């Protein structure tokens, strides 16, 4: 029987409709993951995971996320979102065989993959993107256009797929507003934000079992990746011009995804040196023009932010069309003559962004975004320590780079079984790079231990919270003990 035209149409609609999804700014699976990977490769992440966590393969070391170590809600939430990731891009974790009695199987991925996965999770569910906006001039988050009610914005968000009908019914749909991106990073409601990062980092060092520490380290990487993704989104002009329409329509982000994919994203701009931030949020917006959002907003336009005011005063547009350019962008803004409505009259030229503009924007923006992400990742893991054991079994802690305020140094011992226990906890005084202090342990305390680990928790010299850690394999240290001066700054 020959199928009717209606059936043909219906089947085509369900099975083979040609679509492009509206982007959510830079696409998570490709652009954000690629930017994050490039930033990580240019950062000190590899050396830090080797030195702090004794992961010999560094960013290629496989780590396991064991759902048993998490609360049931958190485990299920992460599991569902992680299992949705695109396995072809390299950040989807591997599903391990489920053990007896386990509701959810463990997931495995390498360090770099977890970091990139975190960047993708930041856009999933889509509702999270409401908090990725930051106005490049004012620092404010997403706000509704004048005349748009919360109800209308909520209904639109359902139609656009950002919110679900259930969220609409429960009043949780996106109402056209959101936290400013820097606030979202620090918000306690953000399950992949700074608070999760700090909490997980502490557990990644101090948890008793190796499995618990490994799972916590995965959470650290997911949170770091997610925060980098929020930072990277401020390198999309739509997010810094309060242009939700452009974020959803995504012509720029779509072109970037098609042109660069994940693996083609350029490396960070080595020449660019962003101001060293005192807080992570300053990389997005510092109020002085140095944040990525401010830099993006001051030099780039989004589709919905083009007005006559964007064209500098006195500009004469000659001919029937062309481009305005800047020293760094050949195609900054396109314009074309429009037919006059009245004979002999002159209609204002149409201003728009086309594919050439988008290509130029991407070629300038992506390396810059990557550099900010690299600086952000290095900032999150700042404060390197180095440990050595003196001949009288005292643990000397040396501070490499960051000035520290006061804090607490916790020394843990690790047994061959992987179990860790606290040996000592001491307060430390503000310190400059150099010797932070020395903790006498005694030979008896080191017996049966294969590793010493320290966690320093306190505030940096800008009074910002900081956690850092270091570890020392004891067999190697015993073979080559280091003679060190007397304790300096540590007070028990």
């Amino acid at each position, binding site marked *: 029987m020959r199928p009717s035209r209606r059936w043909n149409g*219906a*089947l085509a609609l369900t099975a083979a409709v040609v*679509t492009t999804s509206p982007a959510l700014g830079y696409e998570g699976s490709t652009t954000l993951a690629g930017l994050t990977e490039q930033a990580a490769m240019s950062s000190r992440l590899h050396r830090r995971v080797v030195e702090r966590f004794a992961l010999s393969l560094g960013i290629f070391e496989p780590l396991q996320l064991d759902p048993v170590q998490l609360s049931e809600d958190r485990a299920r939430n992460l599991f569902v979102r992680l299992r949705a990731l695109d*396995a*072809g891009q390299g950040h989807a974790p591997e599903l391990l065989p489920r053990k007896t009695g386990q509701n959810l199987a463990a997931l*495995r991925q390498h360090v770099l993959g977890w970091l990139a996965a975190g960047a993708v999770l930041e856009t999933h569910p889509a509702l999270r993107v409401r908090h990725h906006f930051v106005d490049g001039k004012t620092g404010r988050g997403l706000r509704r256009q004048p005349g748009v009610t919360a109800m209308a914005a909520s209904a639109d968000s359902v139609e656009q797929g950002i919110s679900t009908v259930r969220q609409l019914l429960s009043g949780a749909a996106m109402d056209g507003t959101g936290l400013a991106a820097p606030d979202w990073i620090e918000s306690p409601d953000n399950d992949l934000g700074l608070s999760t990062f700090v909490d997980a980092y502490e557990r990644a060092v101090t948890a008793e079992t190796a499995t618990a520490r490994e799972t916590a380290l995965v959470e650290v990487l997911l949170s770091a990746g997610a925060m980098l993704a929020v930072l990277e989104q401020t390198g999309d002009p739509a997010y810094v011009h309060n242009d939700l329409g452009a974020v959803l329509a995504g012509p720029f982000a779509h072109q970037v995804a098609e042109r*660069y994919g994940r693996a*083609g994203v350029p490396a960070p701009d080595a020449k660019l040196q962003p101001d060293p931030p005192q807080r992570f949020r300053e990389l997005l917006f510092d109020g002085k023009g140095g944040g990525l959002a401010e830099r993006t907003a001051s030099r780039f336009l989004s589709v919905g932010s083009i007005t006559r005011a964007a064209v500098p005063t006195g500009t004469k547009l000659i001919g029937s069309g062309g481009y305005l350019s800047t020293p760094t962008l050949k195609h900054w803004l396109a314009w074309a003559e429009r037919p006059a409505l009245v004979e002999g009259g002159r209609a204002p030229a149409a201003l728009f962004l086309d594919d050439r503009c988008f290509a130029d924007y991407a070629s300038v923006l992506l390396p810059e975004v990557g550099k900010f992400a690299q600086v952000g990742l290095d900032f999150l893991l700042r404060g390197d320590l180095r440990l050595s054991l003196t001949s009288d079994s005292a643990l000397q802690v040396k501070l490499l780079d960051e000035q520290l305020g006061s804090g607490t140094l916790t020394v843990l011992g690790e047994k061959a079984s992987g179990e860790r226990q606290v040996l000592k906890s001491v307060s430390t005084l503000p310190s400059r790079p150099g010797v932070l202090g020395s903790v006498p342990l005694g030979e008896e305390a080191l017996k049966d231990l294969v590793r010493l680990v320290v966690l320093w928790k306190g505030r940096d010299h800008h009074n910002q919270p900081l956690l850092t850690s270091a570890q020392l394999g004891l067999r190697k240290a015993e073979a080559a003990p280091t003679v060190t001066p007397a304790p300096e700054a540590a007070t028990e």
Partner: protein
Amino acid sequence: MSRSAQDGSSAQRNFVRDGRFVDETRETGRAGRNPRKRARPSGLYRGCIGRLGVLGLGLLLLGGLAGCLGPVAKAPYARRLGSGLMGSLLGPFDGQVIDQSTGSPLASALVVGTWAFQETGGMATPESSYTETVVTGSDGSYALPSLPTGRQFAGLLRRFTLIVYKAGFVGYRSDLRFDDRSPRHDFVQRGNMVRLDRFPQGESHVRHLVFLGGGPVLRGAAQAEIIQASLELQETAPQLAEEQPAPPSPATTAPPTEPVMNPAAPLAPAGVSLREGS
């Protein structure tokens, strides 16, 4: 699977407008909406639920006929080289893997095909993915089946990625080239020819592994290269503070020049050249 579902290209062409992909589902939804209902929540809820219910039932019924597949995006590759026909993301895929330098077929190369789905709500958020893995035969040929019809797949089938890996060679991705990271335009669905270059001396294993991506099977096959990459990073990764060489003297360091656009500054009369603020 029905003919329509299998032959994605014939159906897909119906939905290309003005050279751009069209989200038919969204357009359909908009066309039938009465804007006045937005101001009346109860009506809107009923409308949404009613429409979603009917749409869901329709999708359920049609899903059975169409192998439980949702919408499928346009494939960015041709069916065959020079055929002029658009390929299908659904598959099947076949081709041959050869050594670029000798032209001889490469047996036992790993071929990984991944179908990635995104949410159908219209947002580019990941929904799920499905992977098939095969190994090339003695003649270097591979054949990946179509996306299986017996499985439940939700969301928009957004992309298909083919990765070919053989130790000692530069890997292949269907979307990008390794040498310049530019988009690949020579991938075809059927009769695809994969020419692998020998892994050049001095080429970065880190860059290569990150380029490849791929899932656990590929990571397993590339285990030796992972170790090489981590050794490479021990030498090339940025140093920690103590190990960093002394910074150059200020006299030799040029200050960073990052011009900031000043929209208030007047343009040159030529019109198309724009200058930035100081």
